[in-house]
């Protein structure tokens, strides 16, 4: 090791502690004399060092108060407080702030804002509900119009005699037939549903009576059961057969478009028939008939009333 490093000035403490001035080597003495005035200073520092170290150790020590220990331990325990208790304390402070008077302005502002938001929300909700009701009412009106226009819930297209079997040259009569068919369909459907419900009730009543008869006489009850069930089934089948043709013939809904299309086809048929194979003079002679029939469709108040009623 480099002796220059070994004899750094800060290491003079070791020399003072270990060796007297006379005990120093020549190199050590030269090093000491570079940092001190001479032997006298070296001896004075050495005496001080030897005196101070044990004197410092022998100084009377003071004892800490017990109150300090208790205070410090309480501080440590306070820091170790469970987090949930700290949270509860914060909640309590939040609900009952010590200086509540300072919060009335922001509380008023936030309360007003909340009320406005709630009012706006309920207003928007109410308006949306109103809009939905309006839409439903319109749909119901359309459905009602459709029902009034002849869209009765039956299922067979062959039930419209006017549409399926137009009578050329008698448009008014065809329209009257359509109206009659619709009224007949309504009446027949009403009667059929009433009779069917009556038959079902009779069947149920028979089944209830069957149970009572079975308790009294099992053998006769079984016979009565078969008889009554058979009768009820036959009655239901008979009713169904009775009304089956009616349902097949009058189950179609005649819409306004079909009615107008049929009417147009009838007019076209009437107007095209003369121009197909007859002479121009004969076609001119029959033209007033076509015009007359068209005028009668547009001017016949009864037909218009019936069409309107059918719609």
């Amino acid at each position: 090791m480099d002796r220059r490093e070994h004899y750094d000035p800060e290491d003079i403490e070791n020399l003072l502690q270990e060796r007297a001035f006379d005990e120093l080597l020549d190199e050590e003495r030269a090093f000491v004399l570079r940092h001190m005035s001479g032997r006298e200073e070296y001896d004075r520092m050495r005496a001080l060092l030897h005196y101070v170290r044990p004197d410092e150790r022998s100084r009377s020590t003071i004892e800490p108060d017990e109150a300090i220990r208790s205070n410090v331990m309480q501080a440590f325990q306070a820091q170790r407080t469970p987090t949930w208790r700290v949270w509860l304390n914060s909640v309590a402070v939040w609900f009952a702030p010590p200086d509540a008077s300072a919060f009335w302005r922001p509380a008023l502002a936030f309360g007003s804002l909340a009320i406005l938001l709630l009012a706006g929300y309920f207003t928007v909700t109410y308006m949306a509900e109103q809009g939905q009701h309006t839409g439903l009412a319109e749909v119901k009106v359309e459905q009602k119009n459709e029902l009034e226009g002849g869209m009765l819930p039956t299922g067979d297209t062959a039930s419209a005699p006017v549409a399926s079997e137009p009578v050329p040259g008698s448009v008014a009569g065809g329209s009257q037939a359509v109206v009659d068919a619709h009224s007949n369909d309504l009446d027949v459907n009403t009667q059929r549903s009433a009779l069917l419900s009556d038959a079902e009730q009779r069947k149920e009543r028979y089944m209830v009576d069957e149970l009572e008869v079975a308790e009294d006489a099992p053998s006769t009850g079984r016979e009565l059961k078969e008889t009554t069930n058979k009768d009820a089934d036959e009655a239901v089948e008979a009713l169904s057969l009775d009304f089956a043709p009616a349902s097949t013939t009058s189950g179609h809904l005649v819409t306004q478009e079909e009615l107008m299309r049929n009417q147009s086809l009838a007019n076209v048929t009437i107007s095209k028939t003369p121009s197909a194979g007859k002479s121009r003079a004969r076609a001119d002679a029959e033209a007033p008939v076509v015009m007359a029939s068209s005028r009668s469709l547009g001017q016949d108040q009864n037909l218009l009333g019936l069409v309107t009623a059918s719609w």
Partner: protein
Amino acid sequence: MAGFGTEYGKLGDERLMELVVRGDERAFAAIYDRYSRRLLNYFHRMLWSDREMAQDFLQDLFTKLASKPDSYDPSRAFQTWLFSVANNMCKNAYRHQAVVKEAAIHLRNGVDRVEAVGGVGVDREMFRDRLDQELDKLDPDHKATFVMRFHEDMAIKEIAAAFACSEGTVKSRIFYTLKKLAERLKEFDPNALKPHGQARTL
């Protein structure tokens, strides 16, 4: 947490601090019992032998440790870290109470003095008073280095760690402090004092 039957007195400082960080109250009590007296006397020496101030500083230091035990850097030795914190507190006290310091130097007569008995005892107490006065005149770092080295009997390495400086700096501070004190206390003959019967004949 330490297991049952753990003798906290045998655990190292760093291990105790690990337990303190986890909330072990007994570990904190062990730390306090281990260092409270040393720190109190260190504060007493550094704060112009003011016993009340030393007690207050001791309580403040351990209150800080209780409130923020995780502020301790486990990579450092706990003792040096603790004394560095104490030294910083003393520096703040020096900085904020410069006027009080001057007043204390002049009013320190009779503060925490042990009644001397006999001529040698009187000389010894006079020497201590003069030594304390001269130490108070020194730079706080030099004074703290001197106290740590000779009163707390700390190693050069530990002092360097407490001050976050090199060991050479600590040795240099000790050398120049001894040189100044020897110059200023040259009217006292350490050989004549013979405080502990260890003084050597120069």
